[in-house]
């Protein structure tokens, strides 16, 4: 019974839990409940992934109505993989918010229980996007996650959070509306909203031009959502001024899920042939991603607010993922998908560490962080490991992604691209090292002198993420293995 409804439970559990959070109200209580729900969701996704790896595809018809009439939920290796790390990171990040003296303190006490509600809703939205097999349903869940994240960002303590959230809202809504237009046009051409069904009918449908435009709108819309350069302008402010926990969660998951939608549309709905051979999407994506990597990395170097710096770095890292996708080869896709996962871990860990810093310093300004490595050695050690992952030093997860990316480039004899990827990681060295140098080798700032180590309840989740970065930097059979399966499914190497 449970096994059959696993797909539905994945969404329904956090969905139902969200309003219950309002009823609980008391901080410890609501935290315990929400964390439990998150871990439960994670557990389900683990079972689901194993199931998918066994059978290849798990499908569920919502309400018992078969597609194309009803809404179908389906999980293939890619979606199961995304579900896994989104729910996992969601659970880890939320675990840190528990007792007194954590990053949750950035949010006024009177609103903390609502934070949990929004958090769970956002999680629901992200999971829903990943799991659904219905185009319009994607839009609905997209809006759930988006609306809740506007609220979450608006919770940020500084007033800059408000315009940041507003800007995100405007751009996000434009993106969503573009996606809606795309969906509408697709529906017009095929008469169905089910993705698998649509992929089949698209081949029969004549009307290349409409499909082309639909494709364009979907790509631009998703591009905004995933902060693909140059559509990224909402992201740095949103990440910089949101509460640290929110940043950690969103940075690790939200853009990743958007990349997932892109993969889904491009490979599952439109098909490689149409997207890459007819349209030459590869060239466009490659150009934009490389440009994005360089520009965003360079901008990151000049930031003084470290959360903002990491946000720009995220824009650059999205570039790596898209670059991998743009190769449209198995290795390239593995690179893109595995980087989804690896970067989620790395950025999650880094922003969690920033949460610890924020908690103790009340600032994430580089000047204030001088000498903090001596006062908060565990926090900053975690940051340093995460930073190394960002650069792609061997034995961290970042290296794995880079390795696949370079291999993908070399396999197709794109020398220049391989070289550019490597050069760009040197830019990461600069912005990461600036922080390491300041934190460990400079004389402590006034704020740093008064700081002390972050509480264990924050350090533990941070180190779980950072530890995972190291673990998946050497043990790649899980991450790269599943990514490989996912890539094969997307490219229809195996049915």
């Amino acid at each position, binding site marked *: 019974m449970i096994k059959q409804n696993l797909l539905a439970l994945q969404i329904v559990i956090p969905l139902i839990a969200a309003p219950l959070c309002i009823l609980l109200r008391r901080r410890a209580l609501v935290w315990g409940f929400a964390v439990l729900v998150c871990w439960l969701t994670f557990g389900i996704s683990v079972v689901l992934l194993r199931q998918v790896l066994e059978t290849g595809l798990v499908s569920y018809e919502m309400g018992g109505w078969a597609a194309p009439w009803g809404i179908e939920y389906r999980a293939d290796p890619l979606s199961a993989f995304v579900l896994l790390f989104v729910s996992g990171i969601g659970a880890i990040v939320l675990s840190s918010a528990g007792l007194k003296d954590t990053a949750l303190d950035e949010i006024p006490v009177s609103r903390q229980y609502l934070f949990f509600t929004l958090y769970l809703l956002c999680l629901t939205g992200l999971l829903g996007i990943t799991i659904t097999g219905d185009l319009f349903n994607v839009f609905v869940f997209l809006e759930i996650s988006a*609306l809740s994240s506007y609220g979450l960002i608006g919770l940020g303590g500084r*007033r800059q959070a*408000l315009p940041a959230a507003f800007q995100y*809202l405007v751009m996000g809504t434009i993106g969503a509306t573009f996606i809606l237009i795309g969906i*509408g046009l697709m529906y017009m051409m095929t008469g169905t909203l089910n993705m698998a069904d649509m992929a089949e009918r698209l081949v029969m449908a004549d009307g290349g031009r409409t499909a082309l435009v639909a494709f364009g709108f979907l790509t631009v819309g998703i591009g905004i959502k995933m902060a693909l350069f140059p559509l990224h302008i909402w992201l740095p402010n949103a990440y910089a001024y949101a509460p640290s926990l929110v940043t950690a969660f969103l940075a690790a998951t939200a853009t990743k899920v958007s990349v997932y939608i892109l993969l889904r549309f491009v490979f599952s709905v439109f098909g490689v042939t149409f997207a890459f051979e007819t349209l030459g999407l590869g060239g466009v994506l490659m150009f934009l991603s490389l440009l994005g990597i360089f520009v965003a990395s360079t901008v990151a170097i000049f930031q003084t607010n470290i959360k903002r710096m990491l946000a720009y770095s995220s824009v650059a890292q999205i570039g790596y993922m898209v670059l991998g996708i743009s190769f449209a080869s198995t290795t390239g896709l593995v690179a893109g998908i595995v980087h989804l996962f690896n970067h989620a871990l790395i950025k999650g860990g880094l922003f969690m560490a920033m949460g610890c810093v924020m908690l103790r310093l009340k600032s994430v300004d580089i000047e204030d962080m001088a000498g903090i490595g001596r006062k908060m050695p565990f926090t900053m050690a975690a940051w340093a490991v995460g930073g190394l992952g960002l650069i792609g030093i061997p034995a961290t997860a970042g290296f794995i992604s880079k390795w696949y990316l370079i291999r993908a480039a070399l396999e197709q004899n794109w020398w220049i691209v391989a070289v550019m990827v490597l050069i760009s990681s040197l830019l990461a060295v600069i912005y990461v090292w600036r922080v390491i140098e300041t934190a460990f080798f400079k004389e402590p700032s006034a704020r740093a002198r008064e700081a002390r180590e972050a509480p264990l309840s924050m350090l533990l989740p941070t180190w779980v993420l950072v530890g995972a970065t190291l673990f998946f930097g050497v043990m790649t059979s899980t991450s790269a293995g599943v990514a490989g399966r996912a890539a094969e499914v997307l490219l229809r190497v195996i049915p």
Partner: protein
Amino acid sequence: MMDNVFGLYNYWVVIFLMMTGFYIVISQRNLIKKVIGLNIFQTSVFLLYITIGKVEGGTAPIVSEGFNVYTNPLPSVLILTAIVVGVATTSVALALIVRIREAYETIEEDEILAQEKLT
């Protein structure tokens, strides 16, 4: 050619409306006007969907004796959902505006940016 013009005329109008809304969003500096623009943009997309569903000579999809041709019900269903989503977005946006006004004493984008530069 003329066939095309008549067949697609409705779409073109809808496109014009959508683009007007889109233009308001990205060109206006006043936050409320941006929201209005978003609203118009979204409403126009709803019109697009409804236009898709229209069947020549059909009638509203309420099953009753004497009618055989019905307009496609699915777009209507979708748009009912989308309208609600639109309003939800609008309300969050407006709430944000209220708070921004409290924090910055203005709802003009340029002035907010100017204040940020100073602080």
